[in-house]
């Protein structure tokens, strides 16, 4: 291949210099990217390789379905809650278990809390450093920083003294040579555009967001009994409501509910007054990033939907984040999504290191097979242990290629917000239009790296305000004497049919997550998981369609291929998490991302 056009409309040219980024830093798990750049350093071909192998399904076979959530939440440190909620929904679907209203509300509240926390951590601690130059913050003028902070927000921590102290602390830290979370940065890179004062303000909020976590996790502790690793239960939520109780472990009492109410108010304040103003301030310096990184987002997006406002109703009448698929950029038609329809979601392995009876055909997750088959293509450069350039014409990733009706799809906050926007949901349309207006960019700016990062911020704010909504619903139920939190009618395996199968879903912060189970004689017979990063980071399929990461990198100009900051910006905007999509084959001790230009 030199130049080809993919069925999904992208022109790939792999004749230019090859740049390898391995591993991509500040993500969970292990991802390798290779791109070809032309003589102007514009990306003309992109190859996304998940360099690990996964096989969680094998661990679950033969186990009690009611325990599956506890195993799946161990896959990854970032996604504990989302695998747990998806797993209990999967088993409930298989066994036909309806959960009480309170359980639905509490799950929504815990899930919205996770959104707020996860999006905050992603923006400040994983993504912001792609836009904020920490070293530049050292030369900021504290007084000017204070004026800037007060101009964009009423957040009280904004005095010159506050920023001066922080700068001193940062200076000491950097001078100690222990860069810690700030290592692996391309400090001083010409693509950093913020003035030193904006950098200092953002670093201050980086630390505030880090500190704020200690409050927000208390909500998970109240409802899940502990943190990390809160408890879940098939049929509802594990903690009983006992409003008059005092101090009983695990019980939800008035004192704890008041604490939750206060933390919700603090969360809303932090996101409204810190995250959103920072996002807008940073975005205003990077409007050119509305031109790049769109990839599949203007064409194919997929959302399973989440936050059912009516217990056990998983249709769009109930889902506050709607379900749907947009194919071919037709925003007028939002297609229905059915996780159990064998013709809709299929995984392909023609370019993945797995073996199917027929590698050209896709398999629905109910019939999924995970049989490793590692082999490098004939055009690979280098050796098995030191690959210089991978052969994307052959198998080249440990990720499978999931497709919706044969189409590669983007999932995640941007996909959800595009679906919501297309469906005319006012609570989604209104904030999107307001931000577009504020930044003075057209609606097409959404389909970009900047749009993806902005959608995450708006969704974080949306989730924080929904926390309040669910909290109020819970308090109203309790006042009406409705205290039920679990349905145990089908808890005993003796009540189950000999065979059952079900599918469960959730919108993880980073995108659509699905679990599929088959139960036989009260044990797990098969369990398949398709995670968001498998959709976004997928390799090519038999038809040659490229996945969301690969599509998003195309046509991006790079200032310096030796320092691929632009690649990190776009890939981080997806919030990739490969811990569950892949599994380490050969752990290595390298700390810095290796970048090789050939």
């Amino acid at each position, binding site marked *: 291949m030199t130049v080809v056009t993919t069925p999904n409309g992208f022109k790939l040219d792999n004749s230019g210099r090859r740049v390898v980024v391995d*591993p991509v*830093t*500040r*993500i*969970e*798990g292990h991802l390798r990217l290779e791109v070809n750049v032309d003589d102007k350093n514009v990306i003309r071909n992109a190859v996304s390789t998940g360099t690990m*192998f*996964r*096989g*969680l399904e*094998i*661990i679950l*076979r*033969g*186990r*009690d379905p*009611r*325990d599956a*959530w*506890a*195993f799946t939440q*161990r*896959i*990854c*440190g*970032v996604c*504990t809650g989302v695998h747990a909620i998806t797993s209990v929904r999967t088993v409930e679907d298989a066994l036909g278990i309806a959960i009480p209203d309170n359980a639905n509300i509490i799950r929504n509240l815990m899930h919205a809390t996770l959104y707020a926390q996860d999006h905050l*951590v992603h923006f400040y*601690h994983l993504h912001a450093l792609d836009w904020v130059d920490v070293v530049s913050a050292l030369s900021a003028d504290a007084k000017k920083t204070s004026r800037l902070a007060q101009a964009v927000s009423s957040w009280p921590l904004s005095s010159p003294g506050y920023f001066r102290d922080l700068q001193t*602390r*940062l200076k000491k*830290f950097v001078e100690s040579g*222990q*860069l*810690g*979370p700030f290592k692996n940065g391309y400090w001083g890179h010409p693509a950093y555009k913020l003035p030193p004062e904006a950098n200092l303000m953002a670093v201050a909020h980086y*630390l505030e967001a*880090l*500190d704020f*976590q*200690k409050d927000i*996790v208390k909500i998970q502790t109240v409802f899940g009994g502990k943190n*990390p*690793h809160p*408890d879940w239960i098939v049929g509802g939520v594990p903690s009983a409501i006992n409003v008059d109780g005092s101090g009983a472990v695990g019980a939800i009492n008035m004192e704890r509910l008041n604490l939750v109410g206060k933390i919700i108010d603090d969360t809303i304040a932090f996101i409204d007054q810190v995250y959103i103003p920072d996002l807008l301030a940073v975005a205003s310096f990077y409007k050119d990033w509305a031109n790049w990184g769109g990839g599949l987002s203007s064409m194919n997006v997929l959302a399973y939907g989440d936050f059912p406002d009516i217990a056990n109703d998983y249709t769009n009448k109930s889902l506050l984040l709607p379900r749907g698929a947009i194919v071919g950029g037709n925003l007028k038609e939002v297609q229905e999504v059915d996780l159990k329809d064998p013709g809709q979601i299929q995984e392909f392995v023609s370019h993945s290191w797995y073996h199917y009876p027929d590698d050209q055909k896709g398999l629905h997750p109910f019939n999924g097979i995970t049989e490793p088959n590692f082999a490098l293509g004939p055009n690979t450069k280098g050796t098995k242990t030191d690959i210089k350039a991978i052969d994307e014409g052959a198998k080249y990733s440990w990720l499978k290629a999931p497709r919706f009706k044969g189409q590669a799809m983007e999932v995640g906050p941007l996909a959800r917000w595009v679906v919501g926007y297309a469906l005319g949901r006012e609570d989604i349309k209104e904030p999107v239009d307001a931000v577009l207006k504020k930044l003075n960019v057209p609606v097409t700016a959404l389909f970009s790296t900047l749009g993806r990062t902005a959608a995450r911020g708006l969704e974080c704010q949306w989730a924080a305000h929904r926390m309040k909504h669910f909290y109020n619903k819970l308090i109203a139920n309790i006042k009406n004497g409705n205290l039920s939190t679990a349905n145990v009618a089908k808890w005993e395996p003796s009540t189950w049919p000999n065979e059952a199968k079900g599918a469960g879903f959730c919108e993880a912060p980073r995108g659509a997550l699905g679990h599929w189970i088959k139960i036989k004689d009260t044990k797990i017979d098969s369990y398949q998981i398709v995670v968001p990063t498998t959709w976004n980071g997928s390799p090519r399929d038999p038809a040659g369609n490229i996945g969301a990461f690969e599509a998003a990198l195309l046509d991006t100009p790079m200032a310096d291929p030796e320092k691929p900051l632009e690649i990190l910006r776009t890939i981080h905007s997806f919030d990739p998490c490969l*811990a569950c999509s892949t*599994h*380490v*084959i050969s*752990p290595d*001790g390298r*700390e810095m991302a290796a970048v090789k230009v050939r």
Partner: protein
Amino acid sequence: MCCAPRSRRVLVLGIGNILWADEGFGVRAVEEFHRRFACPENVTVMDGGTQGLYLVPHVAAADALVVFDAVDYGLDPGSLMLVHDDEVPKFAGIRKMSLHQTGFQEVLSAAQLLGSGPKSLLLIGCQPLDLEDWGGPLTPPVRAQIEPTLAAACAALRQWGIAPAPRAAPLAVGEGLLGHSTDHDAYERRPAATGI
């Protein structure tokens, strides 16, 4: 470092992934510590899993920290190594402490950046034999180090003025840190281990 007031907040933390054979060492060690010893109220015993940055608030709140983890020191499998105080981040800097991109070093330095974090630190690291047996148990040489690990942790805690009290009988399943068949024994009994 010794003879500090008892009110100091102490965190006994195990980190790692129980699904990846010896990568689960830290979590299994803290699980066993909790099963066997009762600690005073100022001591938190925590299964940290692979929570990365989410552990920062817990670490930042601690004055003293004992952490169990599988660490690749390049030694013989099952070798136990104790690293103290300032040496911990330095040591963690040599190799990744966890397979995750956010190593424990980042967690410590983030806590430090917040102007807090433990003043006294002990890392009890065990050299893994096998990190690639997906769903596999701890290997024998690593498992054999749990007992010496508990002894080392107790010795350090006593130096800090804390006396972990051996329980009359180890906690039963369901009272431990890990539940729902992810506790060590139930995990080991999984059909995949014996049948396949």
